[in-house]
């Protein structure tokens, strides 16, 4: 299957997903309203009680919110794919002379767009609540790049979950159960140095923390951006594993 057709078909699937979003705008709640609530919650409710060394809490918080939003968005990837798989539409796609993988690349490409929207919405909101990032344009570009790479890799994890688990509800439960502890046992909302040593050992060596630290360093314009290499490696590594795994699981699920 030629690359051109694969892209054309994927684009057609993105169009379909965007039409879904237009008809049911609730599909964007997880990248708009929910993270807005988290920003307000941590900025105004918890933030006052969390001292951060070297910068204001809201400056510290925003990188955590970016990564949290990108990670939680994976739930919808899996749920929407599982939803498609329980309906007849996939049979239609499978009887068409289209590139079969476009059904899921379309889904993950749509996630990239959702991720961009999330970053834009959060940045604007952040500026309203006192976020004053000092990072250079290049730093910001790098941060957005890392976020999108990590988000894209995670949406392939979502694809794998969606193709593996039988019902949309089960996918939601599974992905949430994985993403929730990873998000909160990280450097997203508090400095890991405040955690008990066993938790700290976990928090400092899990991918979310690496990505959050790298993004934080880039947007705040810190001189030596921490964890840049591990953040990139995790993004690339997850993609290398879950891109083929997601494709394979999808193919296996649909050719029974």
């Amino acid at each position, binding site marked *: 299957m030629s690359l051109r057709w694969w892209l*054309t078909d994927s684009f057609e699937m993105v169009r379909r997903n965007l*039409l879904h979003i237009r*008809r049911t705008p609730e599909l964007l709640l997880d990248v708009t309203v929910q993270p807005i609530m988290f920003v307000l919650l941590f900025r105004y409710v918890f933030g006052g009680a969390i001292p951060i060394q070297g910068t204001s809490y809201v400056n510290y918080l925003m990188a955590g919110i970016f990564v949290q939003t990108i990670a939680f968005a994976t739930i919808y990837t899996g749920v929407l794919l599982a939803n498609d798989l329980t309906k*007849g539409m996939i049979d*239609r796609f*499978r009887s068409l002379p289209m590139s079969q993988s476009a059904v899921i690349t379309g889904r993950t490409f749509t996630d990239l767009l959702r991720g961009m929207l999330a970053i834009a919405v959060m940045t604007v909101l952040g500026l309203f609540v006192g976020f004053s990032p000092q990072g250079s344009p290049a730093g910001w570009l790098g941060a957005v790049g890392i976020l999108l790479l990590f988000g894209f890799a995670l949406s392939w994890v979502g694809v794998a979950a969606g193709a593996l688990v039988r019902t949309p509800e089960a996918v939601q439960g599974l992905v949430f159960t994985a993403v929730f502890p990873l998000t909160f046992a990280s450097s997203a909302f508090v400095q890991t140095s405040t955690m008990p040593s066993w938790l700290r050992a976990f928090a400092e060596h899990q991918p979310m923390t690496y990505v959050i630290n790298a993004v934080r360093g880039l947007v705040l314009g810190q001189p030596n951006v921490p964890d840049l290499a591990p953040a990139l490696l995790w993004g690339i590594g997850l993609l290398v594993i879950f891109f083929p795994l997601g494709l394979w699981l999808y193919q296996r699920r649909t050719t029974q």
Partner: protein
Amino acid sequence: MILAEGLHKHFGKTHALRGLDVDASEGMILAMLGPNGAGKTTAVRILTTLTRSDAGRAEVAGIDVARHPAAVRKQIGVAGQTASLDDLLTGRENLAMVGRLYRLDRSDASRRAADLLARFDLDDAADRTVKTYSGGMRRRLDLAAALIDSPPVLFLDEPTTGLDPRSRLDMWSLIQELAKSGHSILMTTQYLEEADQLADDIAVVDHGRVIARGTAIELKRRVGGERLEVEIAEDQSLDRAAEVLAALGEEAARVDVDHRRVSVPIVAHDGVLTRAVRALDEAGVRADDIGFRRPTLDEVFLALTGQPIDGEPNPEAPA
């Protein structure tokens, strides 16, 4: 155009297909007729590249289905019993999307979509989302999606199941038109009347195999000849009517109490009808209706399988 030889398929312990053979030549309608669970849908799924067979060979338009699924997909259109449509898209968007995925360019896809919407009487609903469609509209749109690239071979899996009588008739005339315009069609159905009305050829499927094959007339001939049937006006005359008819016919009369019908097999028409009317009148039996009747496909199915077509699958039937 369509060929299946010795198809086998099992799901766990269930043998859906046990050596199914069918073939349909160009421009004809082949109906696979059988009860729920007979294996019709599995056969269609194999022929349309959705499922792989465990054994056997399948070809569509001369292309091996297992070896070249992508090439087969260019030649086929599929409309299923669970209309494969996107509920959140409008009718027009559904068709345009499917057209694009058949590799039509954007303007061709939307032109074909508009043509088909008009032809299938979906003009007014074209820009409404499919979730607002009635069952009949969904089936028509599903069929339109199958036709967007005008593929030579069509697979229609129970195209009228669950439709109201009017929508069913609409669907029948659409299918007949498609065959006339040169499409080769394989359809499945549980309705004998449907196979009788539409199909050039019928394959009766039971327990994953074709148990009989032929035109409707040939199949009916297999269960015996014509009968003379009388519908009686009053219940109490049923026995007397049966005696009268038995004297005219070849063997004992069959009595259908529920419908107050009495029938006997007959060999020749000559004068039988007149004699029957006269004899019934002399016996004081009032008849509401009388006439010759060929066996229905229901009776064919009963004779071939030992069970009525809408009966539960019989676990003791020979496999």
